[in-house]
């Protein structure tokens, strides 16, 4: 086959889309086409109105409702198509809006905190170069370093808890547990995911934190170690369920093949199942990490709320602040740069977790195509 350049491929794809639209226009009854156009245009207008905080938003929205109602009765096929299409677009739009809004709000403080390297002024760089957060006493600084440190500490501990325990539990559920046991353990793990984080936080704040402070003779309460453990337990169900999916997607024929040469179940698991599902399992751990990074309430009520690095850096017995708890604690009275700095924290969270999510999906996709294509 001839090599096809990227742009050619894109043009071809675009051409195909145009063709699709043309086919649709061609195949559709003109009356239906009018209705569908009215629906699309009015909805777009309503959306623009909403974005612009206009009082008139309701008018195009009413038109949209009326057109949809009419279309539903008279041209259900086309209306359904257009409606579901707009719903899909809205989903994408929401992601887009999240990106636009949290990035937009974070711009001013990035300019305030720009630093110069090699004669180039890089916006926001200072937030990552020095480690001082002080929103009250001059010099006012909005460093993200302490919160990043806190988030990393919590995530590391959480992963150390959720990773091994989660993978072992997934192995248990997908390979070892008899049906009856699985019927109980699996919903149990799911229920674990359902316990609201504020309940964990409540128990953490009133029971665990004082206990930990007593055990380790720390000055006051709030430690990354225990926030990490609690968050790890919260991330556990995510790891278990995704890893279990990966493990059970390894074809039964491979497992039987191994058992049939006379290996133990455990050998089959470690030599065949786990390696084959390795990428899926790592994706599970990655997603668990994502959960841990984004966990808010338990951290907010358990941490100390003073953005500062622990001393020494590996001191897990002290817990200062994470990106999430910074937002939850300060959104109320923050204004100006401080508010924007919270949005910077939001952006860091969002981007990190998005990258992790995409990475995990890529890994999973590769595993599936490998297993699917090979066997």
């Amino acid at each position, binding site marked *: 086959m001839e090599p096809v350049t990227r742009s050619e491929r894109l043009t071809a794809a675009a051409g195909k889309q145009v063709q699709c639209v043309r086919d649709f226009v061609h195949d559709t009854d003109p009356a239906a086409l009018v209705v569908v156009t009215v629906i699309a245009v009015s909805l777009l207008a309503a959306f623009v109105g909403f974005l612009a905080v206009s009082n008139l938003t309701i008018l195009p929205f009413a038109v949209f409702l009326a057109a949809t109602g009419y279309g539903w009765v008279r041209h259900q096929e086309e209306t359904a198509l257009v409606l579901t299409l707009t719903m899909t677009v809205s989903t994408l739009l929401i992601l887009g809006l999240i990106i636009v809004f949290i990035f937009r709000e974070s711009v001013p403080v990035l300019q305030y905190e720009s630093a110069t390297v090699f004669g180039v002024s890089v916006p926001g760089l200072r937030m990552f170069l020095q480690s001082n957060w*002080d*929103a*009250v*006493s*001059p010099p006012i600084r909005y460093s993200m370093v302490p919160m990043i440190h806190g988030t990393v500490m919590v995530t590391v501990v959480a992963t150390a808890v959720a990773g091994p325990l989660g993978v072992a539990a997934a192995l248990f559920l997908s390979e070892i547990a008899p049906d009856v046991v699985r019927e109980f353990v699996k919903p149990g793990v799911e229920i674990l995911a359902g316990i609201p984080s504020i309940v964990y936080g409540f128990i953490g704040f009133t029971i665990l*934190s*004082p206990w930990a*402070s007593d055990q380790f003779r720390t*000055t*006051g*309460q*709030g430690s990354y170690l225990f926030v990490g453990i609690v968050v790890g337990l919260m991330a556990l169900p995510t790891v278990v369920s995704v890893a279990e999916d990966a493990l059970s997607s390894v074809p039964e024929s491979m497992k039987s093949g191994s058992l049939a040469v006379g290996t133990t179940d455990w050998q089959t698991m470690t030599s065949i199942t786990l390696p084959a599902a390795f990428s899926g399992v790592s994706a599970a751990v990655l997603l668990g990490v994502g959960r841990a990074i984004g966990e808010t309430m338990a951290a907010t009520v358990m941490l*100390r*709320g*003073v953005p500062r690095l622990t001393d020494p850096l590996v001191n897990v017995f002290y817990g200062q602040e994470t990106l999430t708890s910074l937002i939850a*604690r*300060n959104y*109320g*009275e*923050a*204004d100006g740069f401080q508010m924007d700095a919270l949005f910077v924290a939001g952006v860091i969270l969002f981007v990190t977790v998005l990258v992790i999510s995409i990475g995990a999906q890529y890994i999973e996709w590769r595993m599936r195509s490998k297993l699917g294509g090979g066997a």
Partner: protein
Amino acid sequence: GGQSGGGGSGGESGGDSGATATDSGMDGEGSQSGSSSDGQNASLLTAEGSSTVYPISNTGSSYWNSNAPPSDGEYWGSNSESTVPGWEQLGEPDMLIADYFASKFGFEPTEQRSSPPFPTTVGLSHSGTGCEAVTDGLVDIGNSSGPITAELDWSEEQAQSTVVDNVVGRDGQPVVVSSDVIDAGITELTGEQVRAIYQDEITNWNQIEGVDYDQEIYAIGRAEGSGTDTAFRLNMLGDANASMSGVDTRFGQNQQVAQAVSQNEGAIAYMALAFTSESVVPVGIDFDGTLYEPDRDAEHTIFDSDYPLNRDLHMYTLIEEDNPDGGGYDAREAAFINMFLNEFGQTIFVEGNNYIPLPTSDLRSMKEQVSALATEDLVMP
């Protein structure tokens, strides 16, 4: 208007009845903007902010929402068993509590328990949030334990042209320690020592002269932006923006501070009077040779107005441009705030929460301020 009580609420026992407001003359628009020029807006009155002021305004709010009858005697009015304080000064009105205070601003009485002319609610956070919220129009009343000028870094003129400052009581901000510190014999500190602790110059109790208690100091602070924190920096550290590098932990609200002090050893904190207890013990503070003691009977006490940490407790209301003759109030705000500005309110809501009531002169000037909208003379009940 809302006939309330979705789900299982309704006229159940205990007086927690469903009906809220009568919506005489209300047009749906007013209820959204939270202000109305015609004075009969009966929508929910919202307050938000300082955890220091919260006990005062929340107790007030629950009295208001109860709309107790004058025959109650326990919360309002008088009967053979008891009489509420300040009842005489109010002229022993034959009205329910919220009906009475609201009627002075033109509201129709409902004459129903648990059904005030308009309902109220108080949100808990801290002063910075309250000040932000009231200036942004998110709430009707912004509670603050620090002056809004310090909270939001405003000039005096800006503050005066934007909000009305309603002072409802005073707090003698105590410095508290955990009970093990008291047991170690530390019952008083100098202002300088407190400053040194909070600026990381003293980190162990045994670094304080004459103390033999080897225990790291757990210095607890309030959230930046809280009135207590601002007032503490201002009055103790000398500057609203003073550095506080010695703080080990910060909590959003006074209650968490109280809980942390009682749960941990070697703790010190600054807070509001209402939150002291046996395990959260105020210490005497020595300012330039004057010892202010927590004991009300002492020569100088932290309840005195010359105690440097003494501060006003504010309920700010927004001056709205579309309400030129309201004097910064709508009728609901004025009616609710007015409830605190008499002997009944000061005794129950302010002293009852361990705060310091306003001196009579201040009370009078505050009352004059809210009279702007009143339909009756307020100054002389």
